[in-house]
């Protein structure tokens, strides 16, 4: 039974279409992971085959080779308007952040440059509530300050699918069309729709990537799941959090909140 997936899909398409209609200059952040692949797929559904805005990869140069290969292949096959934004080096990051968090912050800075140079008013990001507790507090349309900060203590009212789509000059909005999906939903949907997946998600020698990030701060987890079906079976029973392999989440109690407040995805 996949009727529940139809509902999730419809809701995401609704959000994508709202964003495309209401926000003048939009971009989509593509991390090449399973979630943003599904997001791209949903864009093609929403806009009848075509992704009508630039697709941006925030590149730290630290992704695994399989990721770059996948990026280039899919960008060509799907005729994407791919923009690769090089992130500034780690030395330029806030040095009070714990070291691994600091490495992750490079993407925040890359994003800031992108927004500034491209004058984007909205960026779509494939985050989900079930990934992480501060993401669970997110809005679908999540406004950022002039500096790109997230004011988590004063978020806008958002109800009945009416989103905040008006902003002060110079600020931008994060749009989260997958907020209501779970990790398991994404896999079930990827299977149903036959969405291409970076092979790193499938187990090799007893390990697989469950969440895909830069090679210096992301680690594969123990698993024997070599197919989508096996991944789905694994997720139904696992009690290990999805981002357990993401070092910066767990560096200190507040490290991820700090990262996100400062503008991380």
């Amino acid at each position, binding site marked *: *039974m996949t*009727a*529940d997936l*139809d*509902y999730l*899909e*419809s*809701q995401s*398409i*609704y959000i994508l*279409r*709202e964003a*495309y*209609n209401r926000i003048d200059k939009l971009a989509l952040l593509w991390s090449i992971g399973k979630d943003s692949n599904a997001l791209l797929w949903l864009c*093609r*559904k*929403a*806009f*009848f*085959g*075509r992704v009508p805005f630039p697709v941006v990869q925030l590149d730290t140069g630290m992704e695994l080779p399989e990721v770059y290969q996948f990026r280039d292949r899919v960008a060509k096959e799907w005729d994407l308007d791919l923009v690769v934004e090089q992130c500034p080096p780690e030395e330029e990051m806030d040095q009070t952040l714990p070291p691994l968090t600091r490495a992750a912050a490079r993407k925040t800075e890359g994003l800031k440059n992108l927004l500034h140079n491209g004058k984007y008013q909205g960026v779509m990001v494939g985050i989900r*509530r*079930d990934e992480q*507790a*501060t993401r*669970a*507090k997110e*809005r679908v349309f999540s406004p950022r300050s002039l500096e790109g900060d997230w004011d*988590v*203590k004063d*978020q*806008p*009212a*958002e*109800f*009945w699918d*009416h989103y*905040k789509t*008006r*902003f*002060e000059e110079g600020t931008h909005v994060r749009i989260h069309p997958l907020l209501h999906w*779970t990790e398991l939903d994404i896999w079930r949907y990827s299977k149903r*729709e036959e969405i291409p997946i970076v092979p790193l998600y499938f187990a090799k020698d007893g390990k697989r990537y469950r969440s895909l990030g830069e090679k210096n701060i992301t680690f594969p987890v123990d698993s024997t799941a070599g197919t989508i079906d096996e991944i789905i079976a694994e997720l139904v029973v696992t*009690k*290990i*959090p999805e981002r357990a392999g993401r070092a910066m989440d767990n560096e200190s*109690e*507040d490290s991820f*909140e700090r990262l996100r407040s400062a503008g991380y995805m």
Partner: protein
Amino acid sequence: MEIRNELNGQLRIVIVGHVDHGKSTLIGRLLNDTGSLPDGKVEQVHEMSRKRGMPFEWAFVMDALQAERDQGITIDTTQIHFKTAQRPYVIIDAPGHTEFLKNMVTGASQADAALLVIDAAEGALEQSRRHAFLLHLLGVRQVAVVVNKMDRVEFDQYRFEAVSREIREYLAELDVFPKAVIPIAARHGDNIVTRSDKAPWYDGPTVIDALDAFRPQQTPTDQPLRFPLQDVYKPDDRRILAGRIESGRLRVGDTLRFSPTGATATVVSIEGWNHSQPIIAAQAGQSIGVTLDKRIFAERGHIAHLEQGAPHVTHRLGVRLFWLTSEPLTVGKTYTLKITTAEHRVTVESISAVIDIEDLSSTPAKAVHRNEVAEVVLRSRSPIAVDLASELPRTGRGVIIDGHDVVGGCIAVEVDEGPAASTNTTEVSHAVTTEERFSANGHKGGVLWLTGLSGAGKSTLAMALERALFDRGWQVFVLDGDNVRNGLNAGLGFSASDRAENIRRVAETAKLFADAGVLVIASLISPLQADRARARAIGGERFHEVYVSADLATCETRDPKGLYKKARAGEIAEFTGISAPYEAPESPELTIDTGTLAPTEALGELLDYVDTTFGKTSLKQGRL
């Protein structure tokens, strides 16, 4: 497709109630006791609690922000997934503090059902009631109550029953009948997943039982079709109208009518991408795109429906509203009302009542303050296609936007169809009829002709009236005798013929304004009976003469511009009242004696007259 799979359909439950009554604790404990917490979570919560020098705090499972943990309070709503043997759930935590009501609304609006948490010792407090009321407005009809912290009242059955009775009575007045009222101690896990032995007198359901007893919401597929447009795409030679079906079903071959335009066309195809077979039908909950047989004018905000069962189209809407921002809603203010994807500029015509959350009594008011609930009448310039919330909730509700922000929400409770805009009987070739303009503005256009001596108070009254009506959202403008002489009538002097021409021009201009739907306040001495008769002939039945009377002596002592003095000194020739005649009107529509009335009384009289003559009651009588 179904909105939700009804077999293993996920249910979304919001936890609401007064601050500190134990909502987050309940969720933390629920997750723990159903084995839903990820590995390591309990240890983390131990560490967080220890670090802050407090006993183990279950609420920290949900309260993820540093500020929330440090202050021991939920700030923003959050969601978490968990499963029972019966089905998957999304549990939505909502903050109880009055400061964060907008976050509570954000969370609760997404729920199918609610658990209302009430502290056994404190009973139903202000936010317990407010949340209950808002659930009702948000359309969350399935509610169960938990009376928490029973450990603090020694699991006293009588205390439980007193709290239970009080909340049941309150909910009953909202037409909400809780599926269960359950005594629990969230912190200790009593009656959450397992039955507590501390309350042997209780034999009702546990929290888990109550959750599993909620019913999934029905997909509104059997209701009238509502397909509001989000956008129109032209990916190739197709022209695709995109949107989500909010209720009902749609099939290829259906004839659609669009509101508020009334355009009709037939569905040629339902478009999709990566579908193996053509789509021939779609239903509520689906985001779709359709192509039509005709290139009609249809855009974002228009609602497609079938010929039968159309939505209402109105310029005047009675709503029940909740207000979320510190700047109060007041009569006369203009906001954006957004219903599905349509936006309308609306003016607050009246606030019929503000509802007291404590006892549900209503009182008329001038303003709606933050967190209040009220009955309000909104007036729109553009026609609004809308349903009554009681009939079709999804197209019968909307948000109020002020500037950049959503500042309130409302549901439609009364629709004023107004004078039928379709009975276009005027011979003017305008595409917009006079009636439509009036209906859009909420008042008639017309000419209020203020005549009287210099110094009688015409200009003062005219400007005060303009202000007052403008503040109520009226289309109003003053044509002042002195002001028009600088432009429209520059070059005219004070000879009898120039004075006549002066008045004729003002009368013609006023008429155009009136045709455009504006209430024109013409403020001119207009001393001669004959000239005013001509103005009346130009203005027709929309012309209303107001005699602003004050005797010459009074005007002369007021002499605001020092003109009488000059006239007496012979410096101004042909000055009305001194060296030229003033012919008082014989049968004016209204006389205002500024010699005896205070300025505010004079304004009051004038306002009353304007209201009954040009206001909405006059519209109701259909005498346009």
